[in-house]
């Protein structure tokens, strides 16, 4: 088996919030790698900096110091506008609260990343429908998001995250707003769609029940990565 290809790699990332005496460092020199064709889950107590870290990896937040390469691009050295374009092309997002636009239909929601890239709605909709089909929602394409259950809404969000075929998918607590059963179903679908070569997902979660869908688990504590192991070697009992 050939060596895994790095999708995203962070070196000595630090990040502080606030200024003057109120300044607190949240990330204290993070080193982390995420590989293609894997789902990497980030675990850690509340407030340890998980969201901050994935925001930096996704390019929506800039680090104070350190190097960041995502899909070969040096994000730490790029201008904000270039990073914005980079995100539009290469990154898919799944949020805890789904963040679907309530006044437009599910298929239109799923088409949004293509629209952002400048595709017309009529060209984008067939792709959106295909993507919704893959998450099992072909029945509900014309509905507004609030006509669907939470689990279904998160599946729309997955369809949206994947519609433009991004190579890196960033998820922050994708199942936190769902009940156990729906959380499992959503992750099942997500896992299935991730079985495509070249895709990498970084998933922040509190939900131990979904850890089984990961390939690797990194544990954070107080702004540092304390452990990073393949899921098969993860000590579930210890972390319970």
């Amino acid at each position, binding site marked *: 088996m050939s060596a895994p290809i790095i999708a995203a790699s962070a070196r000595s990332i630090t990040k502080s919030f606030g200024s003057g005496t109120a300044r607190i460092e949240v990330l204290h020199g993070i080193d982390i790698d995420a590989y293609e064709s894997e789902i990497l889950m980030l675990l850690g107590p509340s407030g340890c900096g998980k969201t901050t870290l994935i925001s930096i990896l996704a390019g*929506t937040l800039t680090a104070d110091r350190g190097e960041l390469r995502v899909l070969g691009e040096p994000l730490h050295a790029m201008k904000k506008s270039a990073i*914005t374009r*980079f*995100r539009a092309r290469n990154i898919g997002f799944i949020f805890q*609260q789904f963040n679907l636009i*309530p*006044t437009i239909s599910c298929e239109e929601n799923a088409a949004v990343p293509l629209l952002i890239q400048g595709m017309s*709605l009529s060209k984008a909709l067939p792709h959106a429908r295909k993507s919704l089909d893959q998450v099992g929602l072909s029945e509900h394409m014309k509905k507004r998001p609030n006509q669907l259950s939470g689990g279904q809404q998160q599946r729309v969000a997955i369809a949206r995250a994947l519609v433009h075929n991004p190579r890196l998918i960033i998820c*922050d607590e994708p199942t936190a707003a769902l009940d156990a059963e729906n959380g499992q179903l959503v992750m099942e679908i997500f896992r299935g769609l991730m079985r495509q070569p070249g895709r990498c997902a970084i998933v922040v979660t509190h939900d131990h029940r979904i850890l089984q869908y990961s390939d690797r688990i990194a544990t954070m504590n107080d702004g540092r990565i304390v452990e990073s192991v393949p899921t098969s070697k993860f000590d579930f009992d210890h972390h319970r």
Partner: protein
Amino acid sequence: MFRLALKMLFGDSAKYLMLVFGVMFATFLMTQQSSVFCGLMRWTTAILKNAPAPIWVVETEVRQVNQTIAMRDTDLGRVRSCDGVDWAMPLYSGVQNVRLENGSLTVVQLLGIDSTTFAGAPTRMIEGSIGALRQPNAVIVDDLALSRLSPDPKTPLKMGDTFEINDQEARIVGICKAMRSFTGGPFIWTTYERALSYSPPQRKMLSAILVSPSAGRDADSVAASIERQTGLKAYTNAGFQSSERDFNTATMFWYVKNTGIPISFGTTVLVGFIVGVAISCQTFYLFVLDNLKHYGALKAMGASNGKLCMMLLSQVTVVGLVGYGIGLALASLFGLAAIKNTQPPFYMPDVIPFAVLGVIILICSLASFLGILRVSLLDAAVVFRG
């Protein structure tokens, strides 16, 4: 992204309607009020349109056409002898009482014109002829007079009917179209001599002298030479702002300067503007705030500030155009009804819709400015924070 922006806009129908209403209200109020104002200003010059002559010579102190200060009859001869004058004819102009058959009184604008040349006669006859004015007691009335002077508005007067001006008989021998007067009364034409006999006797009765410049001379220079040679005031009559000496312009500006009319209309226009700004800005900002979370998500997903800005602008543009369109249509309907009804005055020069459009664009720019600022300063990282 454009379609997406519109769908987001229409999706929130309550705010959309509110926004359109704000712009529509502002457009309607500003257009309608300015047009009524212009109509009213035009009415002030109705006599100039109804007794057309290239030059009007009046008493030195006269500043506007509805003001009559009588001149001596001898002034007519002095004007006739002026350099560049082709013809000069007397005009009597005065507001008189007409007694209706049921005994009530109504005011009319009486015009007495020269009985040989008929200078100052109506230009748009509907029935009868101007020459019939030579018959005894003959008058020509405008169509408004037919209903106004009839004791029963359901059966308007017709050709041959009679009524009384200051208790003397007048018989309708012609009907014409005329511009409505500022005082709201109808216009009645008769000969100069008969007009004098209809009016209570006074020492001086000559209200104005209508003059035409001789061939090859322009009205402006002839008017100037009449003023020099007679000491009277000579105005030209070629339409608003046609020249420094134009009587229409002098009259309208007199009303603008000396009456509260512009202030009262101006206040209403200002109210339209302020209400438009208030409703549109506030509602649009609320709309943006409501959608802020989504704009944040779009930003995270790679939408640039420019794209988001275009989204907001297209939303505002659609609201602005729809609201403006409806508002203008309503104002035009109002105008059509007003014109059909002959009042209130309504005149919409081309400049009004364009000026109002400019103001609406200003309102929309103000409304979108805050939203654009808010969205531009939005940090894409917020999407990950509940």
